[in-house]
């Protein structure tokens, strides 16, 4: 009870030395912000940069150049030792549409549309979710009316696909993406593309009586993403990426494999590690300096508290709470500022950036800030606990 009370009171009191408090909160927030950004880059390895860093992409050279059957023969997951092989299949649907399957687990795995390209909503997660282009027009009234009425897609809207009235397949718009720029298979296509999860894709095929063997209903491949096993931090995945690309080589019907060479990735990774070390070192330096200043400014106060009977643990809590309050306040401000900068007010919110505040990156950054405070805390407790009230009181 006593300890809890000291902690609460100390948190309040630590904000009362306003100049010292605000100065260090600002410094901590800058350093925390830098640490968050640097760690975001690392996080990026497994998200936006997933394919660049961990994968090899084989994209069909033209639409219709590779069927799904061919792709399965070309790229056999069993022999590659890869973590995942994702076939991005599509089927022509009528004369204006292509339906493409996506993998909801590897949402950064598709070479053309990534969660960053969303202008509204979220990446599909449910079986009946669909991702549509912002240029898609939905027919609102029956085409037999004298004038057709179309509407722009809105997140949450349900619509139906069907080659006849009795085979309608209902989908819900979960997200809207901005169409990629040319050159790209999707951008250069005259048809619109709708992306749905793999399971839905299979359901759609069976509901529409599409079959793989019928030449008019052939299932084609937009691309195949091969995710190498191993983690990027140790660099194991880099070797595996190179090995997969070397193993497969160039394949007929596809462009040359797209991947980043190990040398480029190593260089980039090393720079990021270096920056991260500087970020953490900076936070460590500031927290240590702050701790040192506390030992100077609060020596007399600590002497009074000890004279009044505060135990070593009580005194530790008093000073620790000040460091933590400053570090956490600085971190939260840094996080909010970063979030504010990354938020595009024009509406092109990125689902990756949008969630940085709740992401493992934020947690890791917080951990880095707390860890960097430990040496400072050890310094402060060693110096503060060594304070003998009698010596301090003798100093006028």
């Amino acid at each position, binding site marked *: 009870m006593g300890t809890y009370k000291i902690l609460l009171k100390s948190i309040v009191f630590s904000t009362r030395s306003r100049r010292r408090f605000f100065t260090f909160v600002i410094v901590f927030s800058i350093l925390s912000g830098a640490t968050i950004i640097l760690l975001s880059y690392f996080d990026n390895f497994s998200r936006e940069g997933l394919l660049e860093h961990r994968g090899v992409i084989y994209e069909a050279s033209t639409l219709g150049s590779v069927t799904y059957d061919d792709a399965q023969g070309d790229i056999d997951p069993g022999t590659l030792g890869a973590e995942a092989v994702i076939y991005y299949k599509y089927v022509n649907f009528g004369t204006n549409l292509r339906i493409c399957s996506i993998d909801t687990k590897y949402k950064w795995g598709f070479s053309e549309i990534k969660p960053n390209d969303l202008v509204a909503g979220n990446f599909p997660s449910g079986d009946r979710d669909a991702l549509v282009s912002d240029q898609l027009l939905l027919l609102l009234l029956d085409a037999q009316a004298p004038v057709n009425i179309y509407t722009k897609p809105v997140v949450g809207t349900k619509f139906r696909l069907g080659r006849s009235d009795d085979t309608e397949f209902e989908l819900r718009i979960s997200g809207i993406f901005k169409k990629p720029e040319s050159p790209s298979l999707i951008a250069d296509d005259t048809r619109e593309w709708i992306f749905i999860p793999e399971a839905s894709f299979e359901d759609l095929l069976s509901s529409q009586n599409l079959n793989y063997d019928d030449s008019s209903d052939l299932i084609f491949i937009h691309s195949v993403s091969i995710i190498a096993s191993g983690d990027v931090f140790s660099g194991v995945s880099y070797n595996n990426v190179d090995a997969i690309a070397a193993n497969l080589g160039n394949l007929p019907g596809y462009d040359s494999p797209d991947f980043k060479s190990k040398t480029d990735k190593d260089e980039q990774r090393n720079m990021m590690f270096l920056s991260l070390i500087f970020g953490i070192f900076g936070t460590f330096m500031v927290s240590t300096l702050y701790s040192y200043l506390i030992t100077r400014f609060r020596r007399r106060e600590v002497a*009074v508290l000890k004279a009044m009977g505060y135990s070593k643990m009580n005194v530790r809590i008093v000073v620790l709470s000040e460091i933590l309050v400053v570090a956490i306040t600085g971190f939260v401000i840094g996080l909010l500022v970063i979030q504010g900068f990354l938020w595009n007010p024009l509406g092109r919110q990125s689902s990756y950036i949008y969630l940085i505040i709740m992401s493992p990156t934020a947690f890791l950054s917080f951990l880095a800030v707390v860890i960097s405070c430990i040496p400072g805390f050890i310094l402060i407790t060693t110096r503060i606990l060594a304070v003998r009230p009698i010596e301090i009181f003798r100093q006028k």
Partner: protein
Amino acid sequence: MSNNVLIEAKNLSKEYIRGKKEVVMAVNDVDLQIPKGKLVMVTGPSGSGKSTLLNILSGLDKPSEGKVLYEDENIAEWDEEKLATFRRGNVGFIFQNWELIRIMTALENIESPLYPLKIKSKEIRMRAISLLKQVGLWDKADNYPDELSGGEQQRIGIARALVGKPRIIFADEPTGNLDQDNAASIMRLLKSFTKRDTSVLVVTHNEDLKRYADTTHRMSSGRFV
């Protein structure tokens, strides 16, 4: 040790090394008894050793020789943590320079000795308010030390010393920085607490304050004279 005595010093000595070789006896073979509910005063000029004596008796400093008996236990042999516990439950301090904590209000300064204790916040607040009223500074509860006069700060210091209901108050030059009226007022306040069985040890260079004491000792060169 008599039942009526709260703290007793026996053959207490404290020596310092000044410079490289010079040994200074700040306290030299002093015997002292502080009875329960009495105001004991030690007077003497600056450098006579009276503050050192107070610091040893309160457990802030260790003697070179001798004993400080509190309920038949020699507190001079206790470690820092045990002494902290002893001070927390039994001792109130009044410092010459008041030593109020600048980031706490007057009310919070008074409450501060009770924060480590298992006492409910409401009870702490009530005790502090009661003392604030007793020292006549209820209207200054939310003021910070920098916003108070010297006399007011010393009153807050006294209230802080009393809030833990100590068995003894150690006051080092409690009127040192105050004018005559304020000094008399502070001494009357201290004297009033002896009626509640609280012992008070005052060390001061001001011989005029003797009239408030039940027992007075004069100190010179580390000895009672």
